[in-house]
């Protein structure tokens, strides 16, 4: 019963913290050579990790690090799942007495808060970034490789995930808009209770159909969906219901507006895109990671942590380059983990960086991004050090 209630809650309130007890859990029947992996203490994450590993027949030691009850990626971005969390959980669980090796597998999506080099220095353990999604963990560990396959580093946004994010998007936008809508209902009777279901429906539709809707991500896709929905409504209202023309026009316009708003908000609920209002309005790029070639020591780490495959290796210069800037969704993982500060975010060039503008396009999480973790002096890459094979 309690679990069903929790599941219902997670369908809407994933954004809110839901902590579970940090500590060590045995998965299957682990021994002294079994892998040690880390996750955050968000109840839903922990449950998914345990269920997936058990289903895949993995024996492992799972370290649940304190992340304020928030999921790994958001917690890492928000400063709650950091190098400190990893250091702390390795030490307090006494896991070193349970295994003979000293390798710890970190979630790839913690790389925007966890610094590889600092974990290594402060714990004496060899960190590895595992796959982006726990469903690929079995394939990763059975491959015996130290670094993840390229396809396992990509974040995906498949249908079940999109459905869940759609309901969460609807719930949170409704919460934010509830008060203004209720106030507006004094003038337009029934506005709020008619709008909320529309909001929910458009939220779910826009996330589920995102790959098929025309336009660039965000407002454009929202508008496309809005035109479709408003047209359907107008058709039904005119043929089946007896709606006066002015009401029909008004509601159609309102559906369009709500859909544009939902479409605008949708990227912040996806793992693939950043919010793009300013790019849309001003036609300028607001995120702009760049590598200073002289500083790159070819450690591969930026490529390993990037969840959307922005970097590529140049075999001639033996350095990494930004190859697919459009895909960058401003997570900051590469900046956090580059040992020589070779990666910079110079999006400020020619773009207003005032707090309001930054808030509008939602990239502020990267704006002030500087290393949060204490970082040791990097050694230049020696074989096996960096995670490369």
């Amino acid at each position: 019963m309690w679990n069903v209630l929790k599941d219902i809650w997670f369908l809407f309130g994933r954004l809110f913290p839901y902590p579970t007890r940090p500590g060590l859990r045995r998965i299957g029947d682990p021994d002294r050579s079994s892998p040690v992996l880390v996750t955050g203490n968000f109840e839903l994450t922990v449950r998914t990790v345990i269920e997936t590993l058990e289903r895949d027949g993995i024996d492992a030691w799972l370290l649940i690090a304190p992340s304020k009850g928030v999921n790994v990626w958001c917690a890492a971005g928000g400063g709650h799942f950091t190098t400190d969390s990893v250091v702390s959980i390795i030490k307090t669980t006494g896991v070193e007495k349970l295994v003979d090796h000293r390798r710890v597998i970190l979630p790839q999506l913690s790389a925007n808060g966890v610094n590889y080099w600092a974990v290594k220095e402060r714990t004496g353990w060899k960190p590895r970034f595992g796959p982006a999604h726990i469903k690929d963990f079995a394939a990763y560990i059975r491959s015996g490789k130290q670094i993840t396959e390229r396809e396992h580093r990509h974040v995906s946004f498949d249908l079940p995930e999109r459905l869940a994010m759609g309901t969460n998007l609807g719930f949170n936008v409704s919460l934010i808009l509830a008060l203004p809508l209720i106030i507006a209902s004094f003038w337009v009777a029934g506005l709020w209770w008619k709008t909320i279901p529309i909001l929910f429906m458009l939220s779910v539709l826009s996330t589920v159909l995102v790959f098929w809707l025309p336009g660039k991500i965000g407002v454009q896709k929202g508008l496309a969906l809005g035109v479709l929905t408003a047209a359907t409504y107008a058709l039904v209202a005119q043929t089946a219901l007896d709606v006066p023309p002015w009401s029909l026009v008004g509601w159609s316009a309102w559906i369009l507006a709500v859909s544009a708003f939902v479409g605008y908000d949708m990227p912040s609920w996806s793992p693939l895109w950043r919010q793009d209002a300013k790019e849309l309005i001003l036609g300028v790029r607001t995120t702009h990671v760049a590598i200073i070639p002289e500083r790159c020591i070819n450690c591969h780490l930026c490529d390993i942590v990037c969840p959307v495959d922005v970097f590529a290796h140049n075999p001639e210069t033996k350095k990494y380059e930004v190859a697919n800037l459009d895909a960058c969704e401003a997570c900051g993982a590469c900046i956090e983990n580059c040992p020589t500060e070779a990666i910079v975010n110079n999006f400020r060039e020619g773009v207003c960086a005032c707090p309001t503008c930054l808030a509008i396009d939602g990239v502020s999480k990267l704006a002030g991004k500087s290393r949060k973790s204490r970082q040791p002096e990097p050694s230049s890459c020696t074989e096996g050090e960096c995670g490369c094979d």
Partner: protein
Amino acid sequence: MSTLVYMKLLEQTPAKYDRGMRVITLGRVDRIKREIAAGWVEPGHSVLELGCGTGSLARLMTERGADVTGIDISEPMLAVARDAAPAATVMHLTATEIERLGESCFDRIVATLSLSELSEDELDYVLHASARLLKPGGLLVVADEVVPIPLRQRMLFWLIRYPLAALTFLLTQNTTHALRGFERRLEDAGYRTVSTKPYLLGTLALIVSERA
């Protein structure tokens, strides 16, 4: 954008944190800090503060002539603390790494409203580690929310604490957790309690214990 709104709302800033701690202790936190500095710290003492936050206690203790080392994991807090208590050594270190600071080298280890931020495993680890850090006869001085053991007092505790916690969250989006079974944990880590002083009908306590 909706995610950004919530992120901003839940974001911790040093000023918000200080306000939150004042609300949840109904302002007692400042008085307790003054009491610790005046009553439990002597000039010349070497003191370690776990979770120094914005540095208000560190400042009071350095003013009293103690040699203070403050640790915290929040960079924004540390930045404020460095300004507030320039005479103290303030550094980024997790409480689970304090053994790096040496052995038997502190006269006092103090922690106000910070041990309750730790998970239970972390708390036990830190208590054991701090016992090794104290000089013989050194004292551990802890001010924190504690859950009383006797049932009637425990009910009273929740009666007072829930509204206060809700108010604190509403005003500053801060939450705290109260220490459970703290006296037993202290004993397990090799401490002997020297004095316990309750505040706010026993929901808050200043517990001083000695390395046995």
